């Protein structure tokens, strides 16, 4: 696919277009998946702050493993769960870089819990975008650490039984207890208003890094229509009616100084 340039007629103004930080590679996500919206919000933040030339992204293992294709900035792909350790290495080696990791719930809150918690506890000065879709997307819809009680997945075919597998991990609440993090927030992208709120949160998380404030994490509730086995609209309802009961939206920690 190549970018189509349209000439703007006299008297008109371009008010909306593809963010410069986004490449013209087509998304590899399923239709109706929220990964695409969140990815775009990151590109908008990069554009707004004018940091494309010094940004390094970290792609996780998961449905966003191809993230590097979608941006016009340097990228590295990390082992499953290790993005926060890789980000630590990059940022410590070159503090002038703007480093962000993009991770699913399996990546960040199961296999990578230790790396996430300790990077936050150290107050590492980078930005984490945490996509909580309550399921393992890429491997075919298994239980995630964020899967809701009663939720059916391929590894909880009768619904998640809390007596057997416990309760969802509220990692953002956990991280908010730590002294070091600058900003921990939970957002959603299920409607236009919330997309704008999520956009602001992501911008703030990047700005914090520019200002040297330290660890900032934006959790975004998301859908996985494919593995929820629901049409996208129904999947959105799942987020607002079910997921938000367990994962209320809002800022969990804001350290302003």
């Amino acid at each position, binding site marked *: 696919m190549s970018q189509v340039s349209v000439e703007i007629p006299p008297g008109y103004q371009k008010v909306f277009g593809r963010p410069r930080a986004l490449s013209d590679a087509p998304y590899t996500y399923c239709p109706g998946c929220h990964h695409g919206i969140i990815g775009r919000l990151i590109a908008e933040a990069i554009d707004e702050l004018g940091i*494309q*030339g*010094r*940004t*390094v992204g970290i792609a996780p293992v998961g449905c966003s*493993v191809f993230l*590097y294709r979608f*941006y*016009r*900035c*340097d*990228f*590295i*792909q*990390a*082992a499953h769960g*290790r993005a926060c*350790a*890789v*980000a*630590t*290495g*990059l*940022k*410590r*080696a*070159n503090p*002038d*870089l703007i480093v962000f990791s993009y991770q699913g719930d399996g990546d960040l809150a199961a296999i990578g819990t*230790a*790396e996430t*918690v*300790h990077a936050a506890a150290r107050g590492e000065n980078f930005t984490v975008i945490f996509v909580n879709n309550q399921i393992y997307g890429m491997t075919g819809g298994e239980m995630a650490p964020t899967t809701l009680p009663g939720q059916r997945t391929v590894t909880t075919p009768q619904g998640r039984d809390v007596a057997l597998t416990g309760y969802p991990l509220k990692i953002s609440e956990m991280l908010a207890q730590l002294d070091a993090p600058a900003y921990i927030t939970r957002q959603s992208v299920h409607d236009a208003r919330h997309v704008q709120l999520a956009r602001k949160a992501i911008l703030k998380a990047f700005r914090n890094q520019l200002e040297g404030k330290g660890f900032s994490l934006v959790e975004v509730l998301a859908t996985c229509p494919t593995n929820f086995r629901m049409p996208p609209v129904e999947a959105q309802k799942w987020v607002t009616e079910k997921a938000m009961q367990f994962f209320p939206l809002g800022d969990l920690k804001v350290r302003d100084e």
Partner: protein
Amino acid sequence: MSRVLMRGNEAIAEAAIRAGLKCYFCYPITPQGELVEYMARELPKRGGVFLQAESEVAAINMVYGAAAAGVRTMTSSSSPGISLKQEGISYLAGSRLPCVIVNMMRGGPGLGNIAPAQGDYFQATKGGGHGDYRLIVLAPSTVPEAAQLVMLAFDLADKYRVPAMILGDGMLGQMMEPVELPPPVDPSSIPEKPWALTGAEGREPNVILSFDLSPQGLREMNRVLQDTYREIERSEVRWEEVETADAEIVLVAYGTMGRIAKTVVERAREEGIKAGLLRPITLWPFPYEPLRELAERVPTILTVELSAGQMWEDVRLAVEGRAKTPFYGELGGVVPTPREILSEVKKHVSS
């Protein structure tokens, strides 16, 4: 050159700093504690980053990030910790990121003990992590050689874009010897890294990956790795020979065991036994060719190791039946004395 008395662990740390080390990540484990302590004390003073990670898994992934940023980076550990680093090492190899990993081996398997051992030879030289990859593995037998090989490890890692490992053991780490430390490298002599992640200002984005979902694509990535490994095998084999010219029996031993074997050769010669030693310095690439040549004229090649016979497999691959290949090893961190090895030597020579 400055001549100082140092422990192996400290000499390795100091040599790494002189090699231009910028970022060191670790998780404490015996018997390499002095290396960690030295780095904590010295590296920040000299413009580098010292960071104690939450685990070996995190430490090696921090190395992955720092290597991608284009700086000289290192981690060190001992056997159980090196097991945890294997996933990260496989990613480093797959993504062609240079770094140095120090393994001061201890007794295993499992928690084992903290005594010197050589049970991680397979892990170091045959892969360890998943996939078709190799590490350059350097095995110092003295403290001065350790310092020298650390500097070499950084150069080779950068030259070939591969991770390099220093494979020592607890004895080398604790031993004190006078060392002539080479002067610090001139940073401008370190090769440019145009592939590094420095921000895409004014150029196309750089991307560092160890994956390609298309089999053809991944085959190409693997071919690049294999071509690099063949080049290393042609150019970087290092070994030392002692008294092999007229030898009737040649010992093959590396690291701490190589040092003890040297004493055995001296004592054997005093008793009129024509013994010699081949000491591999690079365990990968292994000195197959020099050993093969020796096997053409030496009737017995005796492998001596602090393991159940891991390097012994490579020795037999090199010799291919041209000579007898007996084995003498110790297990669990027990280090045989020169006298014990000498009596083994005597079993294999006609008097």
